[in-house]
Each structure stands twice: as structure tokens, then as C-alpha cells.
């Protein structure tokens, strides 16, 4: 936390930059803006614990204001924690060392669509669903629809290297971004040109996509857009086991088909998510597919996928389960009385691996997690030609807060350890934040020093979101 003199000085500078109305120092505002959607934070809130909070909260409107704020923070060596929608699931915006929480929610400008290039430039504080609705009105989609779409902002998409439910076809946010504007810790405003590809050295925008506010503040981006598909066709299959379901997915991609949705639910998750609504054999998995495009394209993709799935032992379930999931895809994000009772916590570990390791990573993680969790269930989603992601979902509860938080940590520890041991990567789209921060060095291995060196070069005073992404941890 800041000493009184530094805080007073910073407050006065911030007021000069953005005006008094847009700087908050009252405890109530600092508490109400202190959290993201990390399940551990939510559990602590339920238990009545106050989360770490910033000393000051500032709401800039322009990139120039962000720049001036960073100059102040850098001069005074004050931690800066950028935050957008506060919808992250890893504690990435929790201000664990206090300082200034730089909230981008007022940066809501969407520039006119470039219809010729099919791009749109947006400010970081635009909420995902507002962008999506803006594009839909003009005949486009963003292709980026994470479950948090109603709460998360464009800046958060970029800072966490996020992925939407249709990333198999449209790509993750790093694939959807052509240009980026970033403010560096010393206040410099950096623009990377919006071009489809280039060969002018490394792609510098990728340095910041996924940097979780540790290297700078993302203020604007130029994103790709797609014409609204003429048709989205749904199809579903059950498989006797994970192995045959995964094989079918792999062969669908190998055949040159990119479904917009490809999700395989393991027997536990299939039972939990679908058995109340559809009849299928106990212990079977469910595969959900969707195909986007014109009639001819989706017909061909559907027919070829059907052939592959049935050859792999799949039983056709028609469009029902897949369509139902699509229509209810945000429902699981809501709390329920069960998931918020006592000291219960439910969380998801979204790992990614190539096909040669994917099933083994899943099995090892599941075995490790089941030692401590009440329930572990999983689905494979965000699938690609070379591999894909697994959502390792768990629920656990203990009779007191201390035991619950300890068990939660234990599950994470054994799960990530198993993932790394089997050759997986510990996050596909949720990012690192606090929940995975201590594993960053093990995950990146020999490449970790590159990240550390970049951090030192760009943020020598270590003001940017300290304690996240394995960087800037303080005593």
C-alpha cells in the first residue's frame, strides 16, 4: 500500500489528468472494483473476506490520458493494475500490492467498420457483447464469443490471449487482431500497423497479447470481422469413450473441415450437461459440432463429418444436443445455490496439448485432481488441426474456509504438475493471473528468461501489474 504522502501526490496528479469525477479513493469504491471473476475470489467474498484493493482507482477516457497516468505512476514507482470488464477467471486484475487500478471501462469507442478490409478498430473498454451487437447490426460477427461475452472487454480479451467458443473456425484473439495500440510504462504510445501479415521482424503486437498488463496497457486494437454466416448447422454424436470421440475430431480436421464448434464431453460432463434433456447410453461421451457458411459448404462439411464420426463408432444424435448447448451456452456461468453454498468452489483449468499427448494429459490430470476434488468432469473444446484444449472442471468443498482454500490450491498444484509432466500447456485461453503465476517458469522453461528480460527492458521499475505472469513477485 502507498504511504500517505505518495498517495496524496498521485491523487492530485490523477485529478489533473482525468478530472475529479474519474478518480476514486473511497474505500467503498476500491472494494467494489477490486475483484475479477476468479472463483477463489468469489468464494472468499461469500465467506465475508475482503480482497486486496488498490489505493486509487482511475478511469481514463483516452489513450493520451492513459499515457499521462503511466508517467505519474512510473515517476512515483506506483504499481499499476489495468482492468477492463473484471471478468477474468485467474485473479489477473486483483491489485495484490495496492497502487493504482487503471480502469478502462470509459474507453468505449468503436470506430466505423472498414467494409473493404473487413476490420474494425475499437477501444479497450468496449464490452464484448456491445461490439458483437454493433457488428451484427451491420451484417458481421466478431467470431469471438467467450462465455464471458456480456462482462468482458476487448482489452481483457487481448491481455489474457482469450478464445471464444468458435475459435476452431475463427481463431483466438491473437488470430483476430491485426493492429494494436499499447502504452508503455514510461508513457510512450506504441502503435503496431494493422496489416494481415508482415515480415518486418518479429510480430511485436504478439508481445503484448497475453501480457496481462505486465508490459504495458493495451488501449486500442484493429480486429478482423466476418460476414454473418448464411447458415449455422448443428449436429451431435455419442461415442462409447473419449478415445473414439477424440479420433473423430482429429480426422474431421484432417479432412480439411474447420467446424465452428467442436466439443467432446467426457462421460461425467455429458451426464451432467445433457442427460436431463436427451436419452443416450450411460457412460458415453457427447460430441457437439456446428458448421458455419453457405448452404453448399455446410452441407458438404456436415456430410463428410457424419461419415467420419460414424466410422469412428459415433451414434448420430441429430442437431438437438449441439443446438441446445448453443442456446444455453452462457447459463453455466451463472451462480447457483449449490455452487455458492458454504465454502464450495468450482473452477476450470483450461489446458492445451497436441493430439499425441492430449488424452494422456486429460487422464493424468483427472486422476491427480480426483484425489482432492468432489467432482472432476471435462470437455475437449477449442479443437484445431494439431490438437486442442481440455476444460478440466472441478468442484470441491470443505467445512471451513482455511481447509477449503488449501484444498483448492492443492487441486491446482497437482493438476498443473500433471499437465506439465505429460507435455501439456497450462492455459489455452484464460491466462495466468494469480492462479497459475507460480507455474509460469516451469511452463515456459528455457523461454522464461526471454519474458523476464523483456519485462526488465520495458518496465525497469516493475510497476506493471506486479505478481502476475510469474513476474514482479514481491516479498
Amino acid at each position, binding site marked *: 500500500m502507498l504511504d500517505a504522502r505518495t498517495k496524496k501526490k498521485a491523487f492530485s496528479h490523477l485529478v489533473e489528468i482525468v478530472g475529479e469525477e474519474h478518480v476514486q479513493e473511497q474505500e467503498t469504491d476500491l472494494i*467494489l472494483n477490486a475483484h475479477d471473476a476468479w472463483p477463489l475470489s468469489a468464494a472468499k467474498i*461469500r465467506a465475508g473476506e475482503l480482497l486486496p484493493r488498490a489505493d486509487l482507482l482511475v478511469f481514463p477516457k483516452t489513450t493520451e490520458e492513459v499515457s499521462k497516468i503511466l508517467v505519474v505512476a512510473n515517476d512515483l514507482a506506483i504499481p499499476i493494475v489495468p482492468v477492463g470488464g473484471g471478468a477474468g477467471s485467474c485473479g489477473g486484475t486483483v491489485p495484490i500490492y495496492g497502487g493504482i487500478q487503471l480502469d478502462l471501462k470509459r474507453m468505449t469507442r468503436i470506430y466505423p467498420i472498414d467494409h473493404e478490409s473487413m476490420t474494425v478498430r475499437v477501444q479497450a473498454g468496449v464490452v464484448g457483447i456491445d461490439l458483437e451487437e454493433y457488428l451484427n*447490426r451491420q451484417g458481421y460477427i466478431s467470431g469471438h464469443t467467450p462465455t464471458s461475452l456480456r*462482462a468482458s472487454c476487448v482489452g481483457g480479451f487481448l491481455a489474457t490471449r482469450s478464445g471464444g467458443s468458435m475459435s476452431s473456425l475463427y481463431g483466438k484473439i491473437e488470430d483476430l487482431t491485426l493492429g494494436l495500440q499499447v502504452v508503455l510504462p514510461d508513457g510512450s504510445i506504441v502503435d503496431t500497423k494493422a496489416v494481415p501479415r508482415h515480415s518486418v521482424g518479429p510480430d511485436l503486437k504478439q508481445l503484448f497479447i497475453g501480457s496481462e498488463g505486465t508490459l504495458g496497457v493495451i488501449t486500442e486494437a484493429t480486429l478482423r470481422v466476418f460476414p454473418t454466416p448464411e447458415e449455422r448447422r448443428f449436429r451431435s454424436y455419442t461415442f462409447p469413450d473419449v478415445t473414439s470421440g477424440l479420433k473423430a475430431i482429429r480426422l474431421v480436421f484432417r479432412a480439411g473441415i474447420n467446424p465452428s464448434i467442436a466439443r467432446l464431453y467426457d462421460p461425467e460432463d455429458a451426464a451432467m450437461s445433457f442427460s436431463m434433456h436427451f436419452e443416450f447410453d450411460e457412460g458415453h461421451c457427447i460430441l457437439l459440432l456446428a458448421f458455419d457458411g453457405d448452404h453448399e459448404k455446410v452441407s458438404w462439411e456436415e456430410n463428410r463429418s457424419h461419415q467420419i464420426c460414424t466410422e469412428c463408432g459415433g451414434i448420430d444424435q441429430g442437431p438437438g444436443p449441439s443446438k441446445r448447448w448453443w442456446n444455453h451456452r452462457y447459463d453455466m456461468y451463472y451462480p447457483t445455490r449449490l455452487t455458492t453454498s458454504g465454502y464450495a468452489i468450482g473452477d476450470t483449468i483450461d489446458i492445451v496439448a497436441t493430439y499425441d499427448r492430449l488424452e494422456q494429459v486429460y487422464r493424468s490430470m483427472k486422476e491427480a485432481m480426483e484425489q482432492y476434488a468432489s467432482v472432476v468432469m471435462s470437455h475437449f473444446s477449442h479443437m484445431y488441426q494439431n490438437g486442442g484444449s481440455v476444460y478440466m472442471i472441478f468442484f470441491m468443498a470443505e467445512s471451513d474456509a482455511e481447509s477449503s482454500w488449501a484444498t483448492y490450491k492443492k487441486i491446482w498444484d497437482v493438476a498443473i504438475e500433471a499437465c506439465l509432466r505429460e507435455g501439456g500447456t497450462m492455459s489455452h485461453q484464460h491466462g495466468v493471473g494469480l492462479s497459475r503465476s507460480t507455474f509460469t517458469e516451469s511452463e515456459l522453461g528455457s523461454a522464461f528468461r526471454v519474458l523476464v528480460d523483456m519485462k526488465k527492458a520495458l518496465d525497469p521499475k516493475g510497476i506493471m501489474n506486479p505478481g502476475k505472469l510469474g513476474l514482479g513477485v514481491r516479498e
Partner: protein
Amino acid sequence: MIAKDFADQLRMCASCPKMCRHVCPTYFAWRSDSPTPHGRALLIHYELVGTRCLDERGIEVLYQCLECSQCLTWCKPEVDIAEIVETRRREIVKQSMRPSALDDMAKVVETHHNPYGEPHDTRNNWLNPTRADGQRLFYFTGCTAAYREKDIALSALHTLENAGFSVVISSEEYCCGSPLIRTGDEEAGLRLAQHNADMINSMDCDEVVVTCPGCLRVLSTDYPKYGIELNKPVRHISEILAENLHNLGTTDFDGGITYHDPCHLGRHSGIYDQPRSVIEHVSRGKLVEMERSRENAMCCGNGAGLRTLFPEHARKIGSERVEQAKRTGAKYLVTACPFCKNMLASQSDDEMEVMDLTEFIEKSRDVKSD
């Protein structure tokens, strides 16, 4: 301390990843996590579990709520934050901790029987019913139509008389109590309720008709909740007109008409179709819907004390609602509430004419009668 009944609702809302925040008008106006459903729940949750008491800023946050209940439309666990906020506001008033501007408003209502500080004896003495035959309706004018939107009261009177009703007005009508009840002043609200109930119950009429949905909700829901029963039904004018379409003319309007659902009429009273059927009938099918309509309609920004306490933010919300209306390409924005009409008209420009439903019918007669 707020009722423990709300504990599990608050616990769920406080740990939700903010699935409704994107439609919250006060989030739109402030762009902060403080004045949001989640922020309100978190404050009261922390208080309820003994972590932290409400401070002055916390109380202000609870008054940065329109009680519009659009969040409820998006809430799968059906957490009714507006009800929780209003319940906590009642305790705040009992603790003499409400914002001082609302103390001032309460005093004005006590003295003048309306929140505008206007003389009571000019409330509706300028409304002159002319028709003695037909079903007798008591028109409860409401403060906004009486003092700020007189054309609505006049249009309501003409429309009802043209439709064959005999309209009765009372100079003994006081503020319905909505501005007090919604901001937590139950005691002062109930004094008004008792006065109005005594007046209405002694009247010789078949039904009570209102043009203000705030009045409708208070008369038909809050009064009975407090044990104050009216001996005749209370209905919004749109309900009565929808049953009497044959007595309304039709007109060719020179542009589309979009409709703004008032929160008290729509989400709080479930009346969505009646105003629409009137507009469709009168305009011969020129109604165009906004993207956010019916259960998902955005509030105009004028509710539950927000305009009194935070006028600039209230106007910002009203202005956004007008922008949403303009996006339909309609020429006319019709609502069915004097309070909404007042706000939306103040934020509109020459591009779009804003009218109450009653004014819309009056205008249809001016344009061309069939």
C-alpha cells in the same frame, strides 16, 4: 439489518461474474463497478455477514439505482436486486441516513402533496370533464401529468370522453407516494396512501384510471401490500383503450412509431401488449420495435430518485434511450408514462418527436381522423 431471507440471493449475486451488468443503465452512466447490481449486492452482503458496515458512499451507491429491474430479466437465479435495494433503503430512512436531497423532497411532498413544490389547489382544477354519460372512471391525474406534462392529462381526458367514458377528477388527490416509497420512505408514503385510499373509496365511480405507471404500481401493488385496500380496480389507460379500439380512430402517420416500455408498466406490472395494440391500431400497423424492448427495455433514467440526486447521469441514460429509438428509423417515440415522456423529450431533438400514448392519440386526431 436487512432480512436474512435475502442472504442466499445476495451471496449468489455477489459472486456472479456480472452477467447482467451490460444492461444496467447506471453502469452505462457511470462506467464503474460501484453502481451495478453486483456492487449493490456486494455492499449489502458484506454488511449482512458482518464484514463491513455501509458508509456514506455505500448509501450513495444504493441510491444510484433506478430499481428498473432490467438486471432481473438477465438473471437466471432470479435475484431481485431492486427489491433488496428498496428494502435496505427503508432501513436507511429509518436510520435518518438517506441523502439530504431526498429529505428535502419528502418535506416538499408533505407540505404541497406533490414533489414539485407546486400549489396543491392548482393540481387539476384546470381539467374540466364534460361528459356525464357512460361508465364512470376516476382519473387519478398523478403529479407529473398535473404539473409538468399537462397535455398528457388533457389528452387522457379527451381520449377517455371520446371513447365513451364519463371522467371524474378530484381536487383531493395527493401524490400517490411512489417517489417516497421507491426511495425508502415507507412512513410518509403510507400517510399519502391512506389519504388517497380514503378519497378513492368514497368516490362514486366504477374504476380508477391512471396515466402514470408509477401511480399504477403503487395503487395496485404497494397499497394492498401495506394493508390499504381500494374498493375499485385500478388500471392503466392503455388497458382500457386496448379494450376500446373500436372507439379510437386510425390515421396515416408520416413515419414509423417506436414504443418505449416504462419500467413500472412493463417489468413491474406486466403490461406490454396493450400500449402496442393501441399504437398498431391507431397508426395502422406502423409500430417498429427497438432492439431492447419489452422485458429487456432500457429504463429512461428517471426512476427511483435518480433524477433528483444525479440529474446529469439520469439525462445520460435518457439520451442513450433516445439514441436506441432513433436506430429504428422511426419518426415518433411513444411511451405510456408522463415521467418517461418528460425525460425522453428533454433528451430528444428535432429528429424524433416524443409523445405519451394519450398525446399520440390526440395527435392522430389532428393529423387526419377517420
